[in-house]
């Protein structure tokens, strides 16, 4: 009964919430008021925007020694997570069968394990730093902790179901993924998409003034 619900209606519901929510939120960025800048530009905006989208992947040189943990753990986590989501064999199979109709090379088993370990390492460190560093402790909202914990649970249940021989474990994983998808558009997990317009806006602003940002 529960299994059917998780595999059926809840799955479609969560997908719907995820896609609709992400679209709405991106839409609200694109379609809400844009202020036109009337001052005479010193430089073009578009290259600035483009530049900043990529330049912010690297921290400023002078800043780096102070934010090492966030940068290193951040990279470890995001790369690990990316590899786990898109290059795990069961996921590729799942995408292939349900969405895309084509597949690509999966990570070998040990590669998957390694990527998952990286993701865990980064996630735990980032979350600890969120709780321990007085700055992020002050500014973090409940939502940030929920996001971290949900991501952790999704990763964990995924890895516990690695043997792929128990449907209860697979269902647990699927259920946590569904929760994650439903929560996604309501939270700062949205940064996975909105970092692009954000950086672009700032990059355009600086580009207009002829500053590299």
């Amino acid at each position, binding site marked *: 009964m529960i299994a059917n619900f998780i595999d059926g209606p809840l799955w479609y519901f969560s997908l719907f919430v995820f896609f609709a*929510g992400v679209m*709405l*939120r991106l839409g*609200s*960025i*694109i*379609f*809400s*008021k*844009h*202020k036109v*800048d*009337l*001052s*005479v530009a*010193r430089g073009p905006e578009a290259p600035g925007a483009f530049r*900043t*989208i990529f330049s*912010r992947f690297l*921290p*400023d040189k*002078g*800043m780096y020694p*102070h*934010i090492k943990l*966030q940068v290193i753990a*951040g990279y470890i986590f995001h790369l690990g997570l990316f590899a786990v989501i898109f290059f795990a064999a069961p996921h590729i199979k799942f995408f292939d069968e349900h969405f895309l109709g084509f597949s690509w090379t999966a990570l070998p088993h040990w590669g998957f394990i390694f990527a998952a370990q990286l993701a865990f390492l980064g996630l735990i460190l980032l979350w600890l730093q*969120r709780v321990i*560093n*007085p*700055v*992020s*402790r*002050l*500014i*973090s*909202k409940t*939502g*940030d902790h929920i996001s971290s914990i949900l991501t952790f649970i999704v990763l964990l249940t995924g890895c516990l179901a690695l043997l792929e021989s128990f449907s209860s474990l697979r269902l647990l994983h699927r259920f946590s993924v569904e929760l994650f998808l439903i929560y996604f*558009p*309501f*939270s*700062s997990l*949205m*940064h996975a998409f*909105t*970092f692009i*317009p*954000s*950086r*672009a*806006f*700032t*990059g355009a*602003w600086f580009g207009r*003034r*002829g*500053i*590299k*940002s």
Partner: protein
Amino acid sequence: MSERLEKGLTALRGQMDSKVESFFSSCVNCGICAESCLFYTETKDPRYTPIYKTEPLRKLWKQEYSFWGKFSSKLGFTKTFKESDLADWEELVYDGCSMCGRCSMVCPMGIDIADIIARVKQGLSAAGYTPQDLVGAANRTLEFGSPMGNILPALKAHIKHIEADTGLTVPFDIEGADYMVTISANEVVTFPEYIGAITRIFAHANVSWTISSEAFEATNSGLQMGNNTIATELVGRIVAAAEKLKVKNVVSPECGHAYAAIRWNGPNYLGKKYTFGVVHILELLDELYRSGRIKTSGMETSRMTFHDPCQIVRRGGVAAQPRELLASVASDVTEMSDHGRMNWCCGGGGGVSANERAEELRIQVFNRKKSQLDEIKVETMVTACSNCRTVLEDGLDANDMDMEVLGLTELIADHLVENEALVGS
């Protein structure tokens, strides 16, 4: 809900646009921006974290604009926005932020935090949570034309001296001049050398220029306190004078926020494009220098460094010009560790220096500059903003540091090649 709060909220709501939407959607509360802000690094008080200073707007966005907020208010959960949500932020935003924009350069999500803080100021000032000193300065400007009262007599007196000393004339209200020069009150009162310097330089380079007796004051208290109505009025005066005199360009003084107000914000305040150009004095000098109209001789030999004023360099884009100009007259220039677009603020921008309440904090955060200076051991610091200059001198005094602070324009004027033909023309 009090009327005051209502006003503040209306002003804040007016600030919402696609930028705010995407910025707040992206912030992951990583705390990286804190390390870029001198108010945090010098006090280690997490409340000075840049993004935390935007909390009033962020809270409102969360309640009324975000997905979650809309959803939960449909369900009947509304958290009310309290008056203290504005009141408690007054000190953080006005005393604890110099609008230097360093935070905007480091956020991994690319959030222009300084821009949002400026928007928060709009809400705070509409609700009347603005430091008294800033309000006073703005009122004086509205009434007498300058934050320091009526300084036209003082200006005229200085000019008389200059004319007597150099034998040059300072042209007032000349129609059709190429450049209309504006000045900041601080330059008139504290650093009148600046006016003498530009007089000599322009005569040397044979520039057609003028000062408007109606609108020479370039500083903008409206921008500092975050009141667009006042800011518009003040910029409007300059624009009106420039249009009246039919000048080709308006020259912004060294003062950083004045440049931001006229050059970048002005057209947006007024909602129209200018009919004239706006240049910063350093841009103009650099252009003259490049085209060979300014000839300098002699070199300063003391060990020097250049302090980048935030609004001119990081937020204004005039970064290469001052360096080129300085290199033309100084032989021993050493850069500070984070220079150029990542320079550390003097601590007095954004109205902080005009706000007496913030003085203690301002002196504390000067430690940032101090440690930068300690690293390089220079004898002279050159800068290009009268406000930075006052703040730097204060800070050096407070720390018993023996260092000279010079304005770049004066330095150039001191090294002009004597041109006999020009004297007296």
